[in-house]
């Protein structure tokens, strides 16, 4: 009888473990499902806005970045402009970054092409992901700033159009090791679409007001 009870107890324990694993799998699948839905929703928003809005660059891009944070997530987003003459990348638009950051960092510090993360992404024309900023050798120059800005990992993607590279698009997270390959690919898609929208708006503006430019 004792043996029978032991066998049953083991069977129940195995069942409980299986239920736990199954529930965990289900939770992960649901998380992935919700994430994909949010990403598609954002791409839908971006493409619809690109073809149906007639706003200027200044009006539209902060909205795109804010919506990305609201719809998909992460902590901050920023878009850097490539100044080809000086070979620097001043920050141009941010989503959810505080004002003091814009004043203290963005207006004084300009990332050089090839430096840090966004500079590397622009020069190599490939996405750059930094999983832990505190220990990354590429971040030694700006380590003093990291305590204030509150991000621990980031992914930067180049914004490349048909005619030129327009700059870089960075996404920051307050957590370490957060960016997956899927995230990087999604952010690169966003960067490609930003560049397409930007190029279209610049050409359209030039076409409409050539005398002013």
């Amino acid at each position, binding site marked *: *009888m004792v043996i*029978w*009870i032991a066998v*049953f107890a083991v*069977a*129940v324990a195995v*069942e*409980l473990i*299986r*239920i736990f694993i*199954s529930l965990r*799998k*289900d939770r992960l*699948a649901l998380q*992935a*499902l919700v994430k*994909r*839905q949010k*990403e*598609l929703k954002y*791409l*839908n928003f971006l*493409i*619809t806005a*690109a*073809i*149906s*809005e*007639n706003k200027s*660059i200044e009006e539209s891009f902060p909205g795109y970045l804010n919506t990305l944070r609201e719809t998909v997530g992460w902590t901050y987003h920023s878009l850097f*402009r490539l*100044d*080809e003459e000086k070979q620097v990348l001043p920050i*141009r638009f941010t989503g959810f970054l505080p004002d003091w950051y814009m004043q203290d960092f963005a207006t004084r510090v300009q990332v050089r092409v090839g430096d840090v993360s966004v500079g590397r992404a622009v020069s190599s024309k490939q996405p750059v992901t930094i999983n832990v900023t505190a220990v990354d050798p590429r971040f030694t120059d700006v380590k003093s700033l990291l305590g204030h800005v509150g991000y621990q990992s980031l992914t930067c993607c180049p914004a*490349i*159009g*048909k*005619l*030129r590279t*327009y700059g870089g698009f960075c996404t920051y997270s307050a957590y370490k090791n957060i960016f997956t390959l899927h995230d990087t*690919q*999604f952010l*690169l*898609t966003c960067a*490609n*679409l930003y*560049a*397409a929208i*930007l*190029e*279209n*708006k*610049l*050409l*359209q*503006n*030039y*076409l409409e007001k*050539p005398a002013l*430019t």
Partner: protein
Amino acid sequence: MIIVLPVLALAIISAEVFLFKQRSKNKASLNRVQNLNTKLNILKSLSYVFSSKRISLKEDLEDIAASFFIQSDHRVFVLIQSGQDAQEEREVWRYKNQVINQNGQSELSTGKINKLEEYLLAQVLEKNKQNQKAGSIFQFNSWAGENLGLTGEETRWRSAVIVSLSDTVSTLGHVLFFSEKENLLDEEEQSFLSEVGGIFTMVLRKWYINNKMPLEEQFKAANIAW
């Protein structure tokens, strides 16, 4: 002891039933994730069309066809560009999935609009008159009763989806997706095809501007600090 054993047995059976239900639920979720991943992958591939150095609309459409057909159920897409005025002939770009050709490439045929396309487009234009908005999507599931006198490949298609390619200024054209299955699109699928339509609109707009400006002027415009 007599009570404990049946209770334990019952607990195990209940757990098995619960796990079975959970597994089918999990499978459904995973299928949906896979489906959404496919859509995201297509959109990711399509986004590269804006940074490619292609020199004509035809080449851009070839890239779109290559990215789209790899994972989509739709067998053919037809892009019908709007003419500048009513008299001007509409340009038609018809791409077939490589599955049909078996030659490893999506096949392009241009030329005149066929009877089925003409009929469906007329339906859309009529509907659009009543409610015109960007990215309008229309689905057609049966036209057998219409006696259109279809011949050849036109008879193969059982359903079609048409997306109006409109921007803030005008309707640049329409894109028609044909399928051999009778499809009733859910909201997700409709939204996805609208996004693909949006990409077509952006590409058409790019070439519209490209045709209006010499290349050196385009570089000048692109180099303006934004």
